[in-house]
């Protein structure tokens, strides 16, 4: 289906090539996982499959790419649009029109599909993706998960032979991500659709993919069947199950928790937890830094928060998880005064902050929103930090840590004079973090801080949080990344339709949850082991 020969590509004015000497062959109906660190060339590779590279981006290209026998570089994206469906990372970025049905018809109209066929295809896709009730809805009223499904529907309606997806699950909760992946597998099986997917969270996709292609610095360093490929992958970038398997030398390598259980012969170790996921409050000591009581918030008539009560203490890392649209981001905005709750109260170190100015609150409560680019506008990284200090009328002498020291801690010293928007996703995330924490707040609120980050960048971020926590900074973290929660948080809150339905120690809450459960908790239910280290420490020689 896809034939790539000696592909080299450089973006215009780039010093180094984005893709270098790539040769591979993808069979019809294969499910390919495209992995690698941030900036390795994964998105560029994906764009070369439908001709966006180089037809849209420009630059210089060598080698050939054939998809379904079509010379991609010769024919270009329009010809390829009926063969390769492309799903971009950000579903909002690819909505062309404003109504669901029109959005689906857009590509078909361009491909001159007849009206009757158009109706048939649209009905079919709406049905498969369970979007039928939304056909007349304005796209702006859809949730993140619904938008992602629409983005996929709008390419599937073209009946492509190949679907290329750039991190399609990055904005989805675990349940929605699992549903989406199962749906893709179904299409892969039933339609013979060739799937090429970029994904950082390998644990989500590994079980479904046939083969892994791993890119590093534009080179294809790994092109193996999934099981073999994972065995050769750097342990840090591997899913927990794979790391555990390698620790104990399991062969063949398990890709699912079911396979893992068989390998480990763990049936007798399984400890079942009660079905009820309602947990009691975690008994912690010390006065809470941040506390809310019976917080309510509505957008018009739609109640988003319904009596949220929570606490965050000094040095504590609390995760707030929940499905898409459960009210997590709204809660964070209420905590820093960007939204005014309809009822309830918020206390910071015992003092109510309701009605206080956002700027005043954010001197004590740092908030890093989902999109770091909205924060960055200065000419250099160091200037970004200086501007925040000026906004708060602070000077560096009043701080316990100078801006230079903070940059060092953020591993940005070498980029102090760089233009922030030229940096990688992970670096921009750290610049934005620096810009909100420079006033040395007591609490840090993070909204999906690891979206789009590779394993290495995530680990560095977690190491940084650990240092701050030792200094008494409390963290409240909104994320869909349960593996991150398992490794970095002491306590977990589950928000469901605006209500906190579970609040307790990480192991207890995650272990009893059916949706927000890390891989190893599924492998060892009831054990309280969430990470590879927990499992290795817990079972040690018994398994080997």
């Amino acid at each position, binding site marked *: 289906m896809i034939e790539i020969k000696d592909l080299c590509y450089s973006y215009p004015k780039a010093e180094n090539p984005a893709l270098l000497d790539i040769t591979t062959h993808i069979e019809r109906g294969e499910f390919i996982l495209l992995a690698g660190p941030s900036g390795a060339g994964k998105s560029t590779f994906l764009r070369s499959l439908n001709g966006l590279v180089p037809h849209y981006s420009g630059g210089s290209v060598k080698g050939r790419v054939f998809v379904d026998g079509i010379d991609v570089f010769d024919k270009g994206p329009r010809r390829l649009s009926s063969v390769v469906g492309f799903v971009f990372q950000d579903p909002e*970025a690819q909505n062309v029109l404003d109504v669901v049905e*029109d959005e689906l018809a857009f*590509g078909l109209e361009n491909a001159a599909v007849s009206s009757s066929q158009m109706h048939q295809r649209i009905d079919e896709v709406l049905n498969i993706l369970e979007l039928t009730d939304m056909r007349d809805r304005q796209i702006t009223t859809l949730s993140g998960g619904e938008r992602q499904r629409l983005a996929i529907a709008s390419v599937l309606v073209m009946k492509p032979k190949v679907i290329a997806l750039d991190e399609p699950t990055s904005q989805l909760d675990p349940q929605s991500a699992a549903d989406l992946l199962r749906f893709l597998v179904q299409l892969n099986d039933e339609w013979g659709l060739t799937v090429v997917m970029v994904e950082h969270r390998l644990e989500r996709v590994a079980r479904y993919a046939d083969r892994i292609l791993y890119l590093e610095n534009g080179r294809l360093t790994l092109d193996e069947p999934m099981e073999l490929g994972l065995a050769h992958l750097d342990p840090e970038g591997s899913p927990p199950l794979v790391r555990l398997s390698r620790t104990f030398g399991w062969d063949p390598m398990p890709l699912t928790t079911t396979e893992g259980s068989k390998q480990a012969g763990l049936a007798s170790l399984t400890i079942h937890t009660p079905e009820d996921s309602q947990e009691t409050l975690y008994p912690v000591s010390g006065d809470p830094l941040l506390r809310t009581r019976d917080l309510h918030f509505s957008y018009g008539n739609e109640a988003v928060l319904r009596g949220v009560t929570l606490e965050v203490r000094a040095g504590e890392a609390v995760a707030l998880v929940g499905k898409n649209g459960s009210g997590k981001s709204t809660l964070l905005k209420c905590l820093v005064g960007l939204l005014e709750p309809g009822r309830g109260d918020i206390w910071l170190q015992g003092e109510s902050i309701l009605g206080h100015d956002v700027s005043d609150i954010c001197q004590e409560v740092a908030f890093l929103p989902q999109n770091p680019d909205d924060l960055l506008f200065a000419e250099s990284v160091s200037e970004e930090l200086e501007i925040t200090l000026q906004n708060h009328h602070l000077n560096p002498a009043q701080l316990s840590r100078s801006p230079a020291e903070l940059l060092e801690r953020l591993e940005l010293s070498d980029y102090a004079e760089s233009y922030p928007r030229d940096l990688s996703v992970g670096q921009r995330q750290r610049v934005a973090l620096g810009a909100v924490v420079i006033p040395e707040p007591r609490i840090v609120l993070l909204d999906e801080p690891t979206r789009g980050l590779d394993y290495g960048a995530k680990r560095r971020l977690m190491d940084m949080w650990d240092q701050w926590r030792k200094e008494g900074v409390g963290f409240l973290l909104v994320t869909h990344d349960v593996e991150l929660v398992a490794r970095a948080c002491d306590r977990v809150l589950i928000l469901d339709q605006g209500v906190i339905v579970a609040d307790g120690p990480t192991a207890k809450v995650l272990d009893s949850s059916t949706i927000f459960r890390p891989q190893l908790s599924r492998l060892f239910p009831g054990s309280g082991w969430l990470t590879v280290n927990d499992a290795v420490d817990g079972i040690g020689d018994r398994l080997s």
Partner: protein
Amino acid sequence: MRFNSRAWMVWVLVVAFLAMFARNPLYSIILLALSLLAIQYYARIESPVRSMFLQISLGILLFSAIYHALFIHIGDHVLFELPQWPLIGGIITVEAIADGFRNGLVLIALIATFMALNTIVPSRELVRLVPAAFQDLAVVVLIAITYVPETRRHLRRIREAQAIRGHRPRGFRDWRPLILPLLVGGLERAMRLSEAMVARGHVSERAENSRAPERILLIAGLFTALIGWVMAILWGVSGYILLSLGGLVLVLIVVRKGRRVRRTSFVAVPWTATDTILVFTSLAALILVIAPWPVIGRLSLSYVPYPLLKMPEFHPLVGLALILLSFPILMGMTTQRDHDRMTEPDQNATSSREGIRQAR
């Protein structure tokens, strides 16, 4: 009641042209009212958009009045006098302020007209209004359509993001943290959108668009039309012949290129008798106002407040001609009344789409 998007386009172009042509504030107010009423009956806009339009309108009126007051120092009613500073020094008059309001009103009427087009005609149909030969232009049209609502959402996000860094906008310089991310983000969004359109097949292939004989003919057509235009100014009839010839060549090329682009339509809104009436009434209003009829007071179309401020003249026949443009509003009122009797008002948009689907 739903008009064909092409009929709406004619109405909008006529209203916009008359808004620019008739500088009399009374006529500008009528045209502004027509656009706002059309929005009222045919579109559903959120209250933040309404308040934004109001704020922008007030801003335009204020800016235009101040600008005229500072830079035009003519008029009999002197309010006060500024020292002889460069450009702005001199008398500040009521007439200059009134002139500023008049110009501001023209601009607001134009904005309202295009807001009517943007809110009444679905994006899908707006894109299809672009001739097939200019497919690339459709990208620009889509970006333009989505620009205002997207920018509003983006600005809100940036304001929140900057507020959490302690930013409190006070002076002009304090707008930099908002404007820079907004501009860069806007460009990035436009790039992403055009990339998405390209990936989904909406782009003219270079090979299809760049046939050499066509390009030569295009240049020749443009050149002929240009020479014809100059000759028409200097020598009259012979120039017009050349101008028409050049124009004909350009139209032929556009038609030929358009025929090569194969596109189908998902929802084809049929052309009905009411569309014909809308086009007819719009063109009739245009001809009645701009043609040099002896009975129509053409002088009333312009209004000059200098040197002495006076009430603008209102000619009933011009007013009657403009009333022709209210045809879609009358139809909208009738439909609304019938609709109110039968269904809930907020089901309006869905039912019209459903109606088209059932009609298919």
